[in-house]
Protein backbone atom coordinates (compact mmCIF):
# COMPACT_ATOMS: atom_id res chain seq x y z
CA UNK A 1 0.00 0.00 0.00
CA UNK A 2 2.93 2.25 0.75
CA UNK A 3 4.03 2.29 -2.92
CA UNK A 4 0.85 4.03 -4.06
CA UNK A 5 1.66 7.68 -4.67
CA UNK A 6 -0.43 10.12 -2.66
CA UNK A 7 -1.33 11.95 -5.91
CA UNK A 8 -2.96 8.75 -7.24
CA UNK A 9 -4.89 8.35 -3.99
CA UNK A 10 -6.00 11.98 -4.34
CA UNK A 11 -7.27 11.29 -7.86
CA UNK A 12 -9.14 8.21 -6.62
CA UNK A 13 -10.66 10.33 -3.82
CA UNK A 14 -11.74 12.90 -6.36
CA UNK A 15 -13.32 10.25 -8.60
CA UNK A 16 -15.20 8.81 -5.64
CA UNK A 17 -16.27 12.28 -4.56
CA UNK A 18 -17.66 12.96 -8.04
CA UNK A 19 -19.49 9.62 -7.92
CA UNK A 20 -21.00 10.36 -4.51
CA UNK A 21 -22.07 13.81 -5.71
CA UNK A 22 -23.78 12.26 -8.71
CA UNK A 23 -25.51 9.72 -6.46
CA UNK A 24 -26.79 12.49 -4.19
CA UNK A 25 -28.16 14.30 -7.24
CA UNK A 26 -29.98 11.17 -8.42
CA UNK A 27 -31.41 10.48 -4.95
CA UNK A 28 -32.72 14.06 -4.73
CA UNK A 29 -34.35 13.75 -8.15
CA UNK A 30 -36.09 10.53 -7.20
CA UNK A 31 -37.29 11.11 -3.69
CA UNK A 32 -39.42 13.61 -1.87
CA UNK A 33 -36.77 14.02 0.81
CA UNK A 34 -33.74 16.22 0.47
CA UNK A 35 -30.77 13.90 0.68
CA UNK A 36 -27.34 15.31 1.44
CA UNK A 37 -24.28 13.11 1.13
CA UNK A 38 -21.32 14.58 2.97
CA UNK A 39 -17.86 14.67 1.38
CA UNK A 40 -16.59 11.12 1.87
CA UNK A 41 -13.49 10.02 3.74
CA UNK A 42 -11.56 7.57 1.55
CA UNK A 43 -9.00 5.11 2.90
CA UNK A 44 -7.13 2.13 1.48
CA UNK A 45 -7.11 -0.74 3.95
CA UNK A 46 -6.12 -4.42 4.08
CA UNK A 47 -8.40 -7.36 4.88
CA UNK A 48 -6.86 -7.41 8.36
CA UNK A 49 -7.77 -3.75 8.84
CA UNK A 50 -11.32 -4.56 7.75
CA UNK A 51 -11.54 -7.12 10.55
CA UNK A 52 -10.52 -4.40 13.00
CA UNK A 53 -12.96 -2.02 11.37
CA UNK A 54 -15.72 -4.59 11.80
CA UNK A 55 -15.47 -3.91 15.52
CA UNK A 56 -17.06 -0.52 14.90
CA UNK A 57 -20.26 -2.41 14.08
CA UNK A 58 -19.91 -4.31 17.40
CA UNK A 59 -19.98 -7.64 15.54
CA UNK A 60 -23.66 -7.07 14.73
CA UNK A 61 -25.28 -7.84 11.41
CA UNK A 62 -25.17 -5.03 8.90
CA UNK A 63 -27.50 -4.27 5.99
CA UNK A 64 -25.59 -4.21 2.75
CA UNK A 65 -26.25 -3.81 -0.95
CA UNK A 66 -23.62 -5.61 -2.94
CA UNK A 67 -22.47 -5.74 -6.56
CA UNK A 68 -19.67 -8.02 -7.74
CA UNK A 69 -17.60 -7.15 -10.79
CA UNK A 70 -15.28 -9.02 -13.08
CA UNK A 71 -13.14 -8.41 -16.15
CA UNK A 72 -10.38 -5.79 -16.33
CA UNK A 73 -10.86 -5.32 -12.61
CA UNK A 74 -12.35 -7.95 -10.30
CA UNK A 75 -13.83 -7.68 -6.87
CA UNK A 76 -16.93 -6.58 -5.08
CA UNK A 77 -18.51 -3.33 -3.92
CA UNK A 78 -20.88 -3.07 -1.00
CA UNK A 79 -22.80 -0.18 0.51
CA UNK A 80 -22.94 -0.99 4.20
CA UNK A 81 -25.10 0.43 7.00
CA UNK A 82 -25.88 -0.65 10.51
CA UNK A 83 -29.39 -2.16 10.26
CA UNK A 84 -31.34 0.38 12.40
CA UNK A 85 -29.61 3.21 10.51
CA UNK A 86 -30.53 1.63 7.18
CA UNK A 87 -34.17 1.32 8.23
CA UNK A 88 -34.30 4.94 9.43
CA UNK A 89 -32.69 6.10 6.18
CA UNK A 90 -35.15 4.23 3.96
CA UNK A 91 -38.16 5.48 5.94
CA UNK A 92 -36.85 9.05 5.76
CA UNK A 93 -36.23 8.81 2.02
CA UNK A 94 -39.67 7.37 1.28
CA UNK A 95 -41.29 9.86 3.66
CA UNK A 96 -43.07 7.09 5.53
CA UNK A 97 -43.91 7.63 9.18
CA UNK A 98 -42.74 5.09 11.68
CA UNK A 99 -42.33 4.38 15.37
CA UNK A 100 -39.95 1.47 15.15
CA UNK A 101 -38.40 1.31 11.68
CA UNK A 102 -38.08 -2.21 10.42
CA UNK A 103 -36.35 -3.55 7.33
CA UNK A 104 -38.98 -5.80 5.81
CA UNK A 105 -38.69 -7.12 2.25
CA UNK A 106 -40.12 -3.95 0.69
CA UNK A 107 -37.83 -1.68 2.68
CA UNK A 108 -34.84 -3.87 1.85
CA UNK A 109 -35.80 -3.53 -1.82
CA UNK A 110 -35.82 0.26 -1.46
CA UNK A 111 -32.45 0.16 0.28
CA UNK A 112 -31.23 -1.89 -2.68
CA UNK A 113 -32.13 0.98 -5.00
CA UNK A 114 -30.44 3.55 -2.73
CA UNK A 115 -27.30 1.40 -2.53
CA UNK A 116 -27.44 0.75 -6.25
CA UNK A 117 -27.47 4.51 -6.95
CA UNK A 118 -24.47 5.12 -4.66
CA UNK A 119 -22.45 2.18 -5.98
CA UNK A 120 -23.28 3.07 -9.59
CA UNK A 121 -22.13 6.63 -8.95
CA UNK A 122 -18.76 5.52 -7.60
CA UNK A 123 -18.19 2.57 -9.96
CA UNK A 124 -19.35 4.72 -12.89
CA UNK A 125 -16.71 7.33 -12.04
CA UNK A 126 -13.99 4.71 -11.87
CA UNK A 127 -15.30 2.90 -14.99
CA UNK A 128 -15.20 6.17 -16.94
CA UNK A 129 -11.43 6.46 -16.58
CA UNK A 130 -10.73 2.78 -17.19
CA UNK A 131 -12.50 2.42 -20.55
CA UNK A 132 -12.16 -1.33 -20.20
CA UNK A 133 -14.60 -4.20 -20.21
CA UNK A 134 -16.08 -4.93 -16.78
CA UNK A 135 -19.17 -7.03 -16.10
CA UNK A 136 -21.33 -6.51 -13.04
CA UNK A 137 -23.82 -8.69 -11.19
CA UNK A 138 -27.24 -7.21 -10.40
CA UNK A 139 -27.31 -5.61 -6.94
CA UNK A 140 -28.38 -7.84 -4.08
CA UNK A 141 -29.33 -7.18 -0.50
CA UNK A 142 -27.48 -9.02 2.26
CA UNK A 143 -27.57 -9.04 6.03
CA UNK A 144 -24.35 -10.24 7.62
CA UNK A 145 -21.44 -9.07 9.71
CA UNK A 146 -18.81 -6.93 8.01
CA UNK A 147 -16.35 -9.76 8.46
CA UNK A 148 -18.51 -12.21 6.49
CA UNK A 149 -19.64 -9.74 3.85
CA UNK A 150 -16.74 -10.43 1.49
CA UNK A 151 -16.05 -14.01 2.50
CA UNK A 152 -17.09 -15.47 -0.86
CA UNK A 153 -15.12 -12.83 -2.78
CA UNK A 154 -11.89 -13.13 -0.85
CA UNK A 155 -9.33 -15.16 -2.76
CA UNK A 156 -6.32 -14.31 -0.62
CA UNK A 157 -5.23 -11.99 2.14
CA UNK A 158 -3.52 -9.77 -0.48
CA UNK A 159 -6.87 -8.24 -1.39
CA UNK A 160 -7.33 -4.58 -0.61
CA UNK A 161 -10.32 -2.52 0.27
CA UNK A 162 -11.09 1.05 -0.68
CA UNK A 163 -13.18 2.20 2.27
CA UNK A 164 -15.45 5.17 1.61
CA UNK A 165 -17.22 6.64 4.62
CA UNK A 166 -19.99 9.14 3.97
CA UNK A 167 -22.88 10.52 5.99
CA UNK A 168 -26.44 10.58 4.74
CA UNK A 169 -28.39 13.55 6.00
CA UNK A 170 -32.11 13.21 5.30
CA UNK A 171 -34.82 15.26 7.04
CA UNK A 172 -33.79 15.08 10.70
CA UNK A 173 -31.80 11.91 10.50
CA UNK A 174 -28.10 11.44 10.11
CA UNK A 175 -26.88 7.99 9.09
CA UNK A 176 -23.32 6.80 8.56
CA UNK A 177 -22.88 4.73 5.40
CA UNK A 178 -19.82 2.92 4.12
CA UNK A 179 -18.99 1.98 0.57
CA UNK A 180 -16.49 -0.85 0.70
CA UNK A 181 -14.76 -1.77 -2.54
CA UNK A 182 -12.86 -5.03 -2.38
CA UNK A 183 -10.26 -5.40 -5.13
CA UNK A 184 -7.89 -8.13 -6.13
CA UNK A 185 -4.42 -6.72 -5.78
CA UNK A 186 -3.81 -6.84 -9.58
CA UNK A 187 -7.10 -5.04 -10.19
CA UNK A 188 -6.27 -2.20 -7.87
CA UNK A 189 -2.88 -1.95 -9.54
CA UNK A 190 -4.73 -1.63 -12.87
CA UNK A 191 -6.86 1.19 -11.46
CA UNK A 192 -3.83 3.09 -10.18
CA UNK A 193 -1.94 2.51 -13.44
CA UNK A 194 -4.84 4.09 -15.34
CA UNK A 195 -4.96 6.95 -12.83
CA UNK A 196 -1.22 7.52 -13.31
CA UNK A 197 -1.67 7.50 -17.09
CA UNK A 198 -4.49 9.99 -16.70
CA UNK A 199 -2.09 12.31 -14.87
CA UNK A 200 0.54 11.94 -17.62
CA UNK A 201 -1.99 12.69 -20.37
CA UNK A 202 -3.23 15.86 -18.76
CA UNK A 203 -1.78 19.01 -20.29
CA UNK A 204 0.32 21.13 -17.95
Amino acid sequence: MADIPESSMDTLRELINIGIGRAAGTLNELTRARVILEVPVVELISMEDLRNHAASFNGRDTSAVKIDFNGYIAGSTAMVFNTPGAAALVYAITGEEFEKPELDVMMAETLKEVGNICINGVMGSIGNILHERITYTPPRYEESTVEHLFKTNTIDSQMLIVLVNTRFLVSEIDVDGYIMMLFEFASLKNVFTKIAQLGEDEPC
Partner: protein
Amino acid sequence: MLKGSGDIVCTILEYLPVGICIIDSDYVVQIWNSCMEQWTGVGRDTLIGTDLREHFPQVKKETFQNRIEGVFTGGTPVVFSSKIHTCIFDAPLPGGRVRRQQTTVLPVEYPTGWYAMVVCEDVTSLTDEIQAYRRMKDTALQELERRERAEYNLRVANEDMLAYISEATVRLKTPMSLVEENLQEILHEIEEGTSTPEELTTALKMQIQMAATIALNLQELNHAIIAGKKEIPAAYRNMIQQ
Protein backbone atom coordinates in the same frame (compact mmCIF):
# COMPACT_ATOMS: atom_id res chain seq x y z
CA MET B 1 -34.36 -7.88 -34.53
CA LEU B 2 -32.84 -10.10 -31.86
CA LYS B 3 -35.80 -12.48 -32.03
CA GLY B 4 -34.95 -13.26 -35.64
CA SER B 5 -31.61 -14.70 -34.57
CA GLY B 6 -33.37 -17.84 -33.40
CA ASP B 7 -31.44 -17.69 -30.17
CA ILE B 8 -32.66 -20.27 -27.64
CA VAL B 9 -32.27 -17.58 -24.96
CA CYS B 10 -35.07 -15.61 -26.63
CA THR B 11 -37.33 -18.65 -26.33
CA ILE B 12 -36.44 -19.03 -22.64
CA LEU B 13 -37.14 -15.33 -22.01
CA GLU B 14 -40.49 -15.78 -23.70
CA TYR B 15 -41.70 -18.25 -21.05
CA LEU B 16 -40.27 -16.66 -17.91
CA PRO B 17 -42.96 -15.68 -15.35
CA VAL B 18 -41.60 -12.11 -15.24
CA GLY B 19 -41.97 -9.29 -17.73
CA ILE B 20 -38.99 -9.05 -20.09
CA CYS B 21 -38.28 -6.29 -22.56
CA ILE B 22 -35.06 -5.79 -24.48
CA ILE B 23 -34.33 -2.44 -26.08
CA ASP B 24 -31.41 -0.99 -27.98
CA SER B 25 -29.77 2.33 -27.15
CA ASP B 26 -32.43 4.15 -29.22
CA TYR B 27 -35.10 2.51 -27.04
CA VAL B 28 -36.32 0.46 -30.00
CA VAL B 29 -38.02 -2.68 -28.65
CA GLN B 30 -36.32 -5.92 -29.69
CA ILE B 31 -38.04 -8.41 -27.42
CA TRP B 32 -41.36 -8.12 -25.60
CA ASN B 33 -42.29 -11.38 -23.89
CA SER B 34 -45.75 -12.87 -23.38
CA CYS B 35 -45.83 -11.89 -19.69
CA MET B 36 -45.39 -8.24 -20.72
CA GLU B 37 -48.12 -8.65 -23.34
CA GLN B 38 -50.49 -10.08 -20.76
CA TRP B 39 -49.76 -7.46 -18.08
CA THR B 40 -49.80 -4.36 -20.30
CA GLY B 41 -52.35 -5.52 -22.87
CA VAL B 42 -49.98 -4.33 -25.58
CA GLY B 43 -49.00 -6.99 -28.11
CA ARG B 44 -45.50 -7.51 -29.47
CA ASP B 45 -46.73 -6.77 -32.99
CA THR B 46 -47.53 -3.24 -31.85
CA LEU B 47 -44.30 -2.75 -29.90
CA ILE B 48 -41.39 -4.51 -31.56
CA GLY B 49 -39.47 -2.14 -33.80
CA THR B 50 -40.99 0.95 -32.16
CA ASP B 51 -39.67 3.38 -29.54
CA LEU B 52 -40.62 2.15 -26.05
CA ARG B 53 -40.79 5.76 -24.81
CA GLU B 54 -43.76 6.44 -27.07
CA HIS B 55 -45.82 3.79 -25.28
CA PHE B 56 -44.91 4.20 -21.61
CA PRO B 57 -44.60 7.67 -20.05
CA GLN B 58 -42.43 6.48 -17.12
CA VAL B 59 -39.77 5.32 -19.59
CA LYS B 60 -39.91 8.69 -21.29
CA LYS B 61 -38.97 10.46 -18.06
CA GLU B 62 -35.50 11.94 -18.00
CA THR B 63 -34.83 10.45 -14.54
CA PHE B 64 -35.37 6.94 -15.92
CA GLN B 65 -33.29 7.54 -19.02
CA ASN B 66 -30.41 9.12 -17.07
CA ARG B 67 -30.30 6.16 -14.72
CA ILE B 68 -30.08 3.50 -17.44
CA GLU B 69 -27.76 5.45 -19.75
CA GLY B 70 -24.71 3.51 -18.53
CA VAL B 71 -26.35 0.15 -19.24
CA PHE B 72 -25.98 0.75 -23.00
CA THR B 73 -22.20 0.86 -22.55
CA GLY B 74 -22.03 -2.25 -20.37
CA GLY B 75 -22.22 -0.36 -17.07
CA THR B 76 -23.70 -1.44 -13.77
CA PRO B 77 -27.24 -2.87 -13.64
CA VAL B 78 -29.91 -0.52 -12.32
CA VAL B 79 -32.83 -1.28 -9.99
CA PHE B 80 -36.09 0.62 -9.62
CA SER B 81 -37.90 -0.24 -6.40
CA SER B 82 -41.68 -0.38 -6.21
CA LYS B 83 -41.65 1.80 -3.09
CA ILE B 84 -40.13 4.78 -4.92
CA HIS B 85 -41.46 4.25 -8.46
CA THR B 86 -44.59 2.10 -7.93
CA CYS B 87 -44.47 0.99 -11.55
CA ILE B 88 -42.48 1.57 -14.73
CA PHE B 89 -44.99 -0.02 -17.11
CA ASP B 90 -48.67 0.84 -17.09
CA ALA B 91 -50.03 -2.65 -16.42
CA PRO B 92 -53.22 -2.52 -14.32
CA LEU B 93 -54.50 -5.61 -12.51
CA PRO B 94 -57.85 -7.10 -13.63
CA GLY B 95 -59.71 -5.07 -10.94
CA GLY B 96 -58.08 -1.85 -12.16
CA ARG B 97 -55.54 -1.59 -9.31
CA VAL B 98 -51.98 -0.56 -10.07
CA ARG B 99 -49.60 -3.47 -10.57
CA ARG B 100 -46.62 -2.64 -8.33
CA GLN B 101 -43.36 -3.48 -10.04
CA GLN B 102 -39.77 -4.05 -9.07
CA THR B 103 -37.69 -3.44 -12.17
CA THR B 104 -34.08 -4.32 -12.92
CA VAL B 105 -32.29 -3.12 -16.04
CA LEU B 106 -29.31 -5.23 -17.09
CA PRO B 107 -26.75 -4.76 -19.85
CA VAL B 108 -26.80 -7.49 -22.49
CA GLU B 109 -24.10 -7.71 -25.16
CA TYR B 110 -24.84 -8.93 -28.66
CA PRO B 111 -22.52 -8.84 -31.69
CA THR B 112 -24.47 -5.75 -32.77
CA GLY B 113 -23.74 -3.89 -29.53
CA TRP B 114 -25.08 -3.35 -26.02
CA TYR B 115 -28.76 -3.71 -25.24
CA ALA B 116 -30.75 -3.11 -22.09
CA MET B 117 -32.81 -5.98 -20.73
CA VAL B 118 -35.64 -4.70 -18.55
CA VAL B 119 -36.81 -7.35 -16.07
CA CYS B 120 -40.09 -6.52 -14.41
CA GLU B 121 -41.43 -8.39 -11.36
CA ASP B 122 -44.98 -8.05 -10.04
CA VAL B 123 -44.70 -7.36 -6.29
CA THR B 124 -48.33 -6.32 -5.70
CA SER B 125 -49.27 -9.43 -3.67
CA LEU B 126 -46.05 -9.21 -1.69
CA THR B 127 -46.72 -5.54 -0.91
CA ASP B 128 -50.31 -6.33 0.15
CA GLU B 129 -49.09 -9.14 2.40
CA ILE B 130 -46.44 -6.95 4.01
CA GLN B 131 -48.94 -4.14 4.59
CA ALA B 132 -51.39 -6.63 6.14
CA TYR B 133 -48.57 -8.02 8.29
CA ARG B 134 -47.65 -4.50 9.43
CA ARG B 135 -51.28 -3.76 10.37
CA MET B 136 -51.48 -7.09 12.21
CA LYS B 137 -48.23 -6.39 14.01
CA ASP B 138 -49.39 -2.89 15.04
CA THR B 139 -52.68 -4.32 16.38
CA ALA B 140 -50.83 -7.06 18.25
CA LEU B 141 -48.42 -4.52 19.76
CA GLN B 142 -51.29 -2.27 20.87
CA GLU B 143 -53.09 -5.27 22.38
CA LEU B 144 -49.93 -6.35 24.17
CA GLU B 145 -49.47 -2.86 25.57
CA ARG B 146 -53.12 -2.82 26.78
CA ARG B 147 -52.70 -6.22 28.42
CA GLU B 148 -49.48 -5.18 30.15
CA ARG B 149 -51.25 -2.09 31.51
CA ALA B 150 -54.22 -4.18 32.70
CA GLU B 151 -51.90 -6.72 34.35
CA TYR B 152 -50.10 -3.94 36.18
CA ASN B 153 -53.40 -2.46 37.38
CA LEU B 154 -54.52 -5.90 38.54
CA ARG B 155 -51.32 -6.39 40.52
CA VAL B 156 -51.76 -2.99 42.21
CA ALA B 157 -55.43 -3.79 42.97
CA ASN B 158 -54.57 -7.18 44.44
CA GLU B 159 -51.95 -5.66 46.71
CA ASP B 160 -54.46 -3.03 47.91
CA MET B 161 -57.09 -5.71 48.45
CA LEU B 162 -54.71 -7.85 50.48
CA ALA B 163 -53.92 -4.87 52.69
CA TYR B 164 -57.64 -4.20 53.14
CA ILE B 165 -58.43 -7.82 54.02
CA SER B 166 -55.51 -7.96 56.50
CA GLU B 167 -56.83 -4.87 58.22
CA ALA B 168 -60.39 -6.26 58.30
CA THR B 169 -59.13 -9.55 59.71
CA VAL B 170 -57.35 -7.74 62.54
CA ARG B 171 -60.54 -5.76 63.24
CA LEU B 172 -62.57 -9.01 63.46
CA LYS B 173 -60.00 -10.94 65.47
CA THR B 174 -60.43 -8.79 68.65
CA PRO B 175 -64.20 -9.45 69.18
CA MET B 176 -63.71 -13.12 68.18
CA SER B 177 -61.03 -13.54 70.89
CA LEU B 178 -63.34 -11.79 73.37
CA VAL B 179 -66.19 -14.23 72.55
CA GLU B 180 -63.78 -17.16 72.97
CA GLU B 181 -62.57 -15.85 76.36
CA ASN B 182 -66.14 -15.23 77.58
CA LEU B 183 -67.27 -18.72 76.51
CA GLN B 184 -64.31 -20.26 78.37
CA GLU B 185 -65.33 -18.23 81.44
CA ILE B 186 -69.00 -19.41 81.15
CA LEU B 187 -67.80 -23.02 80.79
CA HIS B 188 -65.66 -22.61 83.90
CA GLU B 189 -68.60 -21.16 85.84
CA ILE B 190 -70.84 -24.09 84.78
CA GLU B 191 -68.18 -26.59 85.95
CA GLU B 192 -67.67 -24.77 89.25
CA GLY B 193 -71.42 -24.09 89.73
CA THR B 194 -70.67 -20.52 90.74
CA SER B 195 -73.41 -18.88 88.61
CA THR B 196 -77.13 -19.24 88.55
CA PRO B 197 -78.85 -20.54 85.39
CA GLU B 198 -80.35 -17.03 84.80
CA GLU B 199 -76.87 -15.45 84.96
CA LEU B 200 -75.51 -18.08 82.56
CA THR B 201 -78.40 -17.54 80.13
CA THR B 202 -77.77 -13.77 80.10
CA ALA B 203 -74.01 -14.28 79.58
CA LEU B 204 -74.63 -16.74 76.73
CA LYS B 205 -77.15 -14.41 75.06
CA MET B 206 -74.53 -11.63 75.11
CA GLN B 207 -71.97 -13.94 73.46
CA ILE B 208 -74.50 -15.03 70.83
CA GLN B 209 -75.20 -11.36 70.04
CA MET B 210 -71.49 -10.64 69.76
CA ALA B 211 -71.03 -13.67 67.46
CA ALA B 212 -73.97 -12.41 65.37
CA THR B 213 -72.30 -8.97 65.08
CA ILE B 214 -69.07 -10.63 63.93
CA ALA B 215 -71.01 -12.70 61.36
CA LEU B 216 -72.66 -9.48 60.15
CA ASN B 217 -69.27 -7.78 59.82
CA LEU B 218 -68.00 -10.72 57.78
CA GLN B 219 -71.05 -10.54 55.55
CA GLU B 220 -70.48 -6.80 55.05
CA LEU B 221 -66.87 -7.45 54.11
CA ASN B 222 -68.04 -10.03 51.63
CA HIS B 223 -70.59 -7.61 50.15
CA ALA B 224 -67.97 -4.91 50.02
CA ILE B 225 -65.67 -7.13 48.02
CA ILE B 226 -68.39 -8.16 45.60
CA ALA B 227 -70.42 -4.97 45.24
CA GLY B 228 -67.57 -2.46 45.39
CA LYS B 229 -68.50 -0.44 48.47
CA LYS B 230 -66.71 2.79 49.30
CA GLU B 231 -64.50 1.16 51.88
CA ILE B 232 -62.85 -0.95 49.19
CA PRO B 233 -59.56 0.47 47.90
CA ALA B 234 -60.16 2.54 44.75
CA ALA B 235 -57.88 0.41 42.55
CA TYR B 236 -59.77 -2.76 43.52
CA ARG B 237 -63.16 -1.09 42.98
CA ASN B 238 -62.05 0.05 39.49
CA MET B 239 -60.99 -3.48 38.73
CA ILE B 240 -64.42 -4.86 39.76
CA GLN B 241 -66.18 -2.23 37.65
CA GLN B 242 -63.96 -3.02 34.61
